C-alpha cells in the first residue's frame, strides 16, 4: 500500500519532557484518527508532519520528502489548527482571499476560488460579515475552508470538533467523509473516540508520546463501552432537559449545576446518546450554548491499556 506519511524511530523531546518516544508508523491514504488524551503527543505529531518541528531523533517523511523548512510541501497539505486562528476584523471573503494569496493565487483567482469554497461550506451569504460576527460553527467551517482553498492532497485537522454543537459536528463529519471519498488523505486528531469513529475505522491510539494501538477501532470501542461516557451541556433550561434525558436507557447519571445552567451527563452508549440529544434539542427548542466531552473515559481505557 502507498504510504504518504512515514515515521522512522521518531522521538521528540522539549528539554527533559519527552513528547514523542521512538515512534515508527506508516500512514496510508484515507482518513486516520489520531486519538489520545491531552498531552499524548498529538500536537507534536502534527507539528512534525507540518514541518514546524524537527525530530530530536529519527526521520519523518511526507510524500517522500522531509517536511522541515520545506515550504513547497505546504502546497500539498492543508492545516486546520485547534484554536481559532483568524483576523477577526476581516470579512469572511477577505480572510479567505488572503489565505488563497498566501498559497500563491493571483488576486482575482484568489477571490474567485474563495467565493467558490465559501459557497461549498455554506458561508456565501455571510461572506461580507466580519469573522468576529461568525458563530462557532461558521468559524469552524471557515477554518476548514482556508485549509482546502488550494485543493490539498492531505488535510490535517487538529481537534476539529472542539466546542462545536451537534449540528456542526455532523456537518464536519459529513465533510470529512466527502473529502475522503474525493481521494483526500486526512489526519484527524481528537481525544474523543466516537467522534473519530464516525469518520474512520483507521485509528492510531497515542498516550504519553507512544503509540499504544493502531487500526483497532472495534477493540477500543469495546473497552470504551465499559466506562461511562461524560458529556457536559450548557443550556437555558437545564432541569427540563435533564428530566427528558433521564428517560433514555443509555443515560446512567445526570448532575445539574443550576447556577451555570450546566448538565453533566453520563451515558454508556455515547453514539446513541448523541442521536437522542440532537432530537431532544430540536424537538424542544433548547438553546444549547456548549457541548463537550471530557476525556475521562478515554483516560480510563488508556490506563487499562498501559497496565
Amino acid at each position: 500500500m502507498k504510504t504518504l506519511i512515514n515515521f522512522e524511530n521518531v522521538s521528540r523531546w522539549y528539554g527533559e519532557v519527552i513528547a514523542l518516544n521512538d515512534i515508527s508508523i506508516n500512514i496510508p491514504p484515507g482518513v486516520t484518527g489520531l486519538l489520545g488524551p491531552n498531552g499524548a503527543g498529538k500536537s507534536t505529531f502534527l507539528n512534525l508532519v507540518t514541518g514546524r518541528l524537527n525530530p530530536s531523533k529519527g526521520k519523518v517523511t511526507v510524500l517522500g520528502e522531509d517536511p522541515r523548512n520545506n515550504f513547497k510541501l505546504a502546497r500539498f497539505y492543508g492545516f486546520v489548527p485547534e484554536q481559532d486562528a483568524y483576523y477577526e476584523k476581516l470579512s469572511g471573503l477577505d480572510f479567505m482571499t488572503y489565505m488563497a494569496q498566501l498559497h500563491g493565487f493571483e488576486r482575482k483567482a484568489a477571490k474567485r476560488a474563495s467565493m467558490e469554497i465559501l459557497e461549498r461550506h455554506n458561508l456565501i451569504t455571510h461572506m461580507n460579515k466580519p469573522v468576529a460576527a461568525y458563530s462557532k460553527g461558521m468559524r469552524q467551517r471557515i477554518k476548514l475552508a482556508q485549509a482546502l482553498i488550494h485543493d490539498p492532497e492531505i488535510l490535517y485537522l487538529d481537534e476539529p470538533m472542539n466546542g462545536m454543537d451537534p449540528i456542526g459536528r455532523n456537518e464536519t463529519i459529513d465533510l470529512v467523509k466527502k473529502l475522503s471519498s474525493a481521494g483526500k488523505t486526512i489526519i484527524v486528531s481528537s481525544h474523543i473516540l466516537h467522534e473519530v469513529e464516525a469518520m474512520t475505522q483507521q485509528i492510531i491510539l497515542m498516550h504519553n508520546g507512544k503509540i499504544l494501538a493502531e487500526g483497532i477501532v472495534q477493540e477500543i470501542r469495546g473497552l470504551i463501552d465499559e466506562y461511562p461516557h461524560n458529556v457536559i451541556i450548557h443550556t437555558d433550561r437545564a432541569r427540563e432537559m435533564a428530566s427528558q434525558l433521564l428517560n433514555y436507557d443509555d443515560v446512567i447519571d445526570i448532575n445539574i449545576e443550576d447556577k451555570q445552567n450546566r448538565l453533566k451527563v453520563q451515558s454508556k452508549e455515547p453514539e446513541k446518546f448523541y442521536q437522542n440529544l440532537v432530537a431532544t434539542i430540536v424537538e424542544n427548542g433548547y438553546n444549547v450554548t456548549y457541548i463537550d466531552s471530557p476525556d475521562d473515559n478515554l483516560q480510563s481505557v488508556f490506563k487499562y491499556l498501559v497496565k
Partner: protein
Amino acid sequence: MPIFEQTYRKWEGTLKTTGIRWLPITKMGIKQTFKKKRFLLFFIGCQIPFLVFAIRLIIGALVPESIENAPEFLKITPSFFAHFLWIQSSFIFIMTIWSGANLINGDYQSNALQLYLSKPLTQLDYILGKLSIVAFFNLAITMVPAILLFILHVLIKYDKNWFIQNLWVIPAILGISLAVSVIHSLFILCLSAITTNSRFSAITYFIILVLTDGVSDLLYHLRRVSALLTISISNNIYSLFGIFFGKHAAKIPDYSENTADPYYGAAILIVLCVLCYFVIKKRVGRIEVIQ
C-alpha cells in the same frame, strides 16, 4: 485501483510558482493600517514638511541667479535634502510604533502565526512580509518625498551642471532612507515578537530609545568622550547621515551636537539589526509546549 466519488469539486485554477511569496502579507498589512482613520491623518500630517520644502524649493527657483546675497536657505544643495530627511526621521519614530507595534504579537493573539506557517512560506518570508509593512510607511515619508523634491527641482530649474554634480544625492537618499527604515522596522518587530501586547512593545520601544539617549547624553556631558554617544540608538541612526551625505550632513542643524562617529555607530546598528533578526526568527519558530 480505487474509484473516488467526485462529490468534492476541485478548483480548476493554477497556482503561481514564482513571485514574491511574502508580498500578500505586506499588502494586507498596509491595507489594514490605512483603514485606521487616525493613522491616515498622521500619515498625511507627516507630508507637511514635504510641502514646506517644496515651497522653499519653488521660491528658490524663482529667485534670479543674478541676485547676490540671496538667503542661504533658498539655495538648493545636497544639505537641503539631508535636512529634509533629518526632519522626517523624527516622524519615523511615531510611524514605526503605529504601524509595527502589533504586527507579530497581534498574530500571537489571533493564533494566526500557525496559519502563516502552514502556507508555502518560510519564516524568512513571514519576517520580510511584516518588515516591509513598517518599511513601506517609513519610506513613504522619507525616500518618496525626498526623491520627489529632487525631481521637482530638476523639473522647475534644470541645470545640467547642478544635476551631474548632485546625482549622487539620489543614492544617498535611497541609502539613508532604507537604512533608517529597516533599523526602526527590525527593532519594533523584535519588540513585537518578544511581547504579547502591542502597547507594551510600543512603550518598550519608546523607553529604550529615550533611555539610551538620556544615558548617552548624561555620560557624554560628564566624561566628554565621544564614544559614549554611541550608547544612544538615535545618535547612531542620525550619525548615518554623515556616511551618506558626507560633509553636507554637517550643515544640518543639530547634526554635530547629536552624532557619534558614523562608522562606529553603523557597526553598532548592524549588530543590533542582526540580533533583532535572530530574536524575531527564534520567537516566530517557537512552539508552545503543553506539559
